[in-house]
């Protein structure tokens, strides 16, 4: 008998598949035995996990096989479990000993200067959990292609472990549309519903996941199945069409050209992407780089220059260090702020560290010698912050000139994410504006996006927030200042018509979402009355 469970849509689309439940390891329990028993238990769990990985590797090819092969090589290395065996000899339970040993290893990776090494911490998390599952006697996390992953919450590494090329979907009891898994799901077009509550535990058998409506349908009727299959097919066709037209400009039905740029955090994000697919880089996040190179002008310059060369004359917008808030940098951001989101962050912090800020500004001015670099200041509230940054930029340019180093003075713009700045936009002097819709939305709605209990309030389509965006678009463009939007809303098919109607003509989105964003723009007719009141 068909029944529907409702939650929040986190990634659009529909899919039908068999439920594959994943139970959280944190909730698992086991009783510890003697040190001999515990030693045997962990050895057996490691061996079983290694055998499981070996089977997986054999079934994969290319990059996936190499990633799993790395995990297997680590797991087979006795050095990995040395600490755990020592703790067990001292009387620790196998699961505690293993978790503690792996957490030390994981912390070591996270502390690395190099982002490549940092990123490997997720492999160690996978290894840790795979062994723990065997230790606790939990079902192996093994989803058939096309399955619906059903869980309380899902780790990014679990998402990445699944082969999504044969369909599939995600249904979560908790979770958030703003989680990393949700971003991955949207980028790969995997339908996802979150916030189902305790009902997730009862999901079994055949499920239809409707990421558009935020519904999970259990035991769908033949009629529901037929409708869903039609929607899957239509979506696949539309996605194929969007992909074929990825390199073409995005023009609305009534002939309005909309610029589509990309948001990046490093060179990995543009690897293999033809520059012709976009109108430049609308946002470069530099926090990842800064963690390791905050004082390293050459390394920063090398990255910025590589981006400029890739862009072949298209504008490259680079945001200065946006640390603080949810992005702490040890030794740089303030410790123990009572409310870090409203604290010393972004440009506020950069201006407190003029020497380190100067390193970044010099690297940016040097990269500008090779193409149009635009510097974007995050978290600006007042004009004097822009003026202070401009003076520091002048000083950086002066230093480069004095040393005879090739440079150019980049344009200096602001990210509009503080509501007070958005309201004051008509009086603000900056070379360009880019709306950071994520923070603007959560500040204006007074609701955190990563708190499932209130995240539905943080809706960019709230008329008040759309009003703010329209205000910035209208008054921002007076005097010929370009206005763009670089938050998640820019690639949200539900938000795109409203953003264009609010006056925006430039969006910056994740590289993987360029094709779909352009397709959404092409479907809008600005000369017609909006559907659904948008």
């Amino acid at each position: 008998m068909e029944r529907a469970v409702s939650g929040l849509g986190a990634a659009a689309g529909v899919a039908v598949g068999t439920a594959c439940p994943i139970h959280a390891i944190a909730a698992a329990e086991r009783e510890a035995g003697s040190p001999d028993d515990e030693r045997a238990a962990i050895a057996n769990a490691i061996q079983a996990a290694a055998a499981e990985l070996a089977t997986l590797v054999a079934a994969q090819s290319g990059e996936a096989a190499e990633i799993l092969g790395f995990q297997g090589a680590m797991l087979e290395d006795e050095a990995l479990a040395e600490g755990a065996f020592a703790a067990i000899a001292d009387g620790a339970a196998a699961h505690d000993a293993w978790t503690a040993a792996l957490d030390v290893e994981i912390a070591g990776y996270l502390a690395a200067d190099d982002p490549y090494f940092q990123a490997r911490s997720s492999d160690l998390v996978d290894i840790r959990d795979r062994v723990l599952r065997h230790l606790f006697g939990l079902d192996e996390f093994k989803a058939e292609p096309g399955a619906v992953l059903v869980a309380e919450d899902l780790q990014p590494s679990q998402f990445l472990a699944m082969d999504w090329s044969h369909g599939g979907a995600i249904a979560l009891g908790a979770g958030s549309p703003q989680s990393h898994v949700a971003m991955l799901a949207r980028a790969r077009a995997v339908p996802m519903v979150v916030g189902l509550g305790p009902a997730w535990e009862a999901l079994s058998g055949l499920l239809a996941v409707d990421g558009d409506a935020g519904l999970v349908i259990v035991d769908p009727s033949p009629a529901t199945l037929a409708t869903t299959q039609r929607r899957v097919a239509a979506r696949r066709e539309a996605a194929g069409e969007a992909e074929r037209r990825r390199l073409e400009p995005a023009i609305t039905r009534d002939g309005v050209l909309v610029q589509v740029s990309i948001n990046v955090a490093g060179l990995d994000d543009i690897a293999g992407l033809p520059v012709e697919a976009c109108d430049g880089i609308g946002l470069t996040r530099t926090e990842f780089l800064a963690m390791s190179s905050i004082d390293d002008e050459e390394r920063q310059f090398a990255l910025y220059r590589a981006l400029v060369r890739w862009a072949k004359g298209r504008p490259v917008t680079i945001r200065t260090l946006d640390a603080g808030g949810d992005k702490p940098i040890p030794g740089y951001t303030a410790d123990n702020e009572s409310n870090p989101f409203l604290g010393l962050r972004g440009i506020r912090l950069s201006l407190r560290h003029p020497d380190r800020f100067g390193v970044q500004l010099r690297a940016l001015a040097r990269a500008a010698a090779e193409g149009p670099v635009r510097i974007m200041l995050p978290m600006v509230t007042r004009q004097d912050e822009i003026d202070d940054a401009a003076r520091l930029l002048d000083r950086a340019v002066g230093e480069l000139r004095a040393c005879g180093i090739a440079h150019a003075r980049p344009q200096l713009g602001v990210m509009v994410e503080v509501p007070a700045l958005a309201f004051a936009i008509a009086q603000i002097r900056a070379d360009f504006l880019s709306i950071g819709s994520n923070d603007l939305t959560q500040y204006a709605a007074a609701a955190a996006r990563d708190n499932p209990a209130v995240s539905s309030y943080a809706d960019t389509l709230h008329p008040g927030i759309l009003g703010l965006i329209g205000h910035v678009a209208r008054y921002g463009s007076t005097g010929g200042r370009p206005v763009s939007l670089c938050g998640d809303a820019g690639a949200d098919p539900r938000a795109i018509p409203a953003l264009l109607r609010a006056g925006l003509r430039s969006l910056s989105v994740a590289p993987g979402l360029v094709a779909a964003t352009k397709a959404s723009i092409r479907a809008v007719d600005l000369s017609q009355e909006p559907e659904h009141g948008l």
Partner: protein
Amino acid sequence: MKFTPENKTTELTASVLLTNEVGLHARPSVKLTQSAKRFRARLEVATAPDGPWVDAKSPVKIMRVKAAKGETLYFRASGADAFEALDALIDLVKRRFDEE
């Protein structure tokens, strides 16, 4: 320093610049240890000429070194096939682990 009887006579060292983009990262580490395991010799690697040395057959220990692009890798080997082993490892690093 402790020497086993077998390697008392042969302790070989060599060094090579790490030039592949990601350093001694996941795949390169696995390739290095796989190559090292083909030899009977005791093989160790370090990022400084005086150590600390880690077992070149242990991917876990090699990953802990976090050797980045531009660093010099020092190898030392002892045992029957130490020379061939060093040769193979140096060659692998010079070939950038066949990745680029």
